[in-house]
């Protein structure tokens, strides 16, 4: 049995990963304190706060990290909390753009209708920068919220796509003094000083939360250069591979919470759906059935491999080899 061609194992894992999607069971999942603390914190924020969501990962880990960033972005937009969007890596820059595009895509249920910086320039010049007043003025001007949209999000009022900058740990350090000095303009060449959200939140000292979704130790930079320098509250959304390493930061209070892997993103989606912020869960939750099936298969393979090893007397042969 130990000489089984590994391609059969590959086939097994492939089949086990496809069937639960087609059957669609939807087993419920319970939420943990580590994710609930992030949810409760963001839920307590409003239009007078602002947060950073940093897409600090490369496309390789997008399956785990993108749902995290998207879920918190949706939550922030629901509460009218302005979001600054950044990225640690050049490839993460593309991920950040795709994350925002997903939340504002009319083809995706529960989307937010995006209004570009130029489109609402007239209102800005008239001094209408408060979100509630802006929405009223915008709709009174004849703009109708599309069917299925959860609300309007105005560039420069609700979100600013700052993107990538090199040596990002030093950029975080620089933003503790001034965000505009590090990002004079956003990726669409809109000047940051013209954005109401920047005028109200000039440095990281005035930011209520930095969520870093990371596939590497890039997330640590937010604690080192943000949290410890100016007391910036930080939350992690990390891949499962790294999640166990950062429990000391949760216990010490250096991060307010952590979403670990696809499970963490699924928990956040469940919390959003349970609290009526989204109509239903999204991709991360749907993947959990496959996770169940695949884990059962892996455990079965471990047991089978050990039975074959010990039953075949390999453990004795290995011990004898050592003595020879």
């Amino acid at each position: 049995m130990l000489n089984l061609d590994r391609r059969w194992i590959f086939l097994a894992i492939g089949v086990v990963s496809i069937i639960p999607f087609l059957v669609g069971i939807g087993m419920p999942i319970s939420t943990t304190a580590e994710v609930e603390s992030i949810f409760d914190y963001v839920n307590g924020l409003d239009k007078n706060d602002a947060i950073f969501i940093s897409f600090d990962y490369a496309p390789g880990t997008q399956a785990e990290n993108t749902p995290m960033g998207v879920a918190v972005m949706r939550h922030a937009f629901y509460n009218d909390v302005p979001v600054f969007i950044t990225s640690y890596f050049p490839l993460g820059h593309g991920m950040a753009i795709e994350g925002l595009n997903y939340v504002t895509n009319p083809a995706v249920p529960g989307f937010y209708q995006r209004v570009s910086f130029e489109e609402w320039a007239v209102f800005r010049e008239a001094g209408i920068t408060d979100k509630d007043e802006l929405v009223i003025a915008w709709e009174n001007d004849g703009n109708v919220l599309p069917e299925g949209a959860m609300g309007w999000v105005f560039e420069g009022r609700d979100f600013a796509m700052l993107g990538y900058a090199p040596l990002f740990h030093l950029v975080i350090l620089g933003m503790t003094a001034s965000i505009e000095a590090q990002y004079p303009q956003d990726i669409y060449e809109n000047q940051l000083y013209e954005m109401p959200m920047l005028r109200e939140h000039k440095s990281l000292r005035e930011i209520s939360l930095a969520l870093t979704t990371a596939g590497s130790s890039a997330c640590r930079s937010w604690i080192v250069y943000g949290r410890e320098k100016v007391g910036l509250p930080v939350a992690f959304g990390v891949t499962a591979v790294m999640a166990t390493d950062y429990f000391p930061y949760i216990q010490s209070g250096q991060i307010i919470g952590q979403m670990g892997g696809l499970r963490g993103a699924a928990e956040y989606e469940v919390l959003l759906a349970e609290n009526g912020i989204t109509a239903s869960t999204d991709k991360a939750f749907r993947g959990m059935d496959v996770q169940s099936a695949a884990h059962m298969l892996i455990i079965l393979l471990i047991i089978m491999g050990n039975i074959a090893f010990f039953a075949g007397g390999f453990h004795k042969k290995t011990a004898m080899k050592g003595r020879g």
Partner: protein
Amino acid sequence: MIVMVGGILMMVQYFIPHQYSQAVFNSYTEWAPIVGAFALILGVGSLTRVHSHKIRRKAKNWQYSWAVLLPLFGMPVFALLLPQSLAGGMEEPSIFHFLFMHIQVPIQSTMFSLLAFYIASAAFRAFRAKSALATVLLLAAVIVMLGQVPIGEVFGRWLPETGLWILRYPNLAAKRAIMLGVGFGILATNLKIIFGVERNWLGGAGK
């Protein structure tokens, strides 16, 4: 000398709230990303050198080197020089966006996902409970694995709660010990670099 002066200057700057100290800090944080951006030259130069050598010498699989060099120099041209009327620019729809979103992202994501197959194969062939310690490791892994998925709750609440307890206490203890050790190591390495004891980062560029 530059390393020592820069290092000590920035260390001291941290503790001095005076405006001149802040000016040093501001200049540094504005200049560093510009200098860092040019570091890309090293990566591009090395890659170009390696693959152009392969092409010139017609080494094994030299044809694939074109697949590296053409997009390497093509991407900036498509993004920055090609007009939008010819599918230039960086935003969707453009050649640049297409190459990134529909070739780069799928390939890189898929490469990482190959690991799922290899971990399944390794689970069968390599994960052996050969000793008490290995057995403890495997048991902890199985409990945590089942506790993290919905099907774990079918076995009872004790399974996910035990998994969480393992994460919050023994795992935390081990990782904290590692973090403290690594933290001290980073501090020692930082000081060695600043005082010139450690020079490996120079990479042997000339004499």
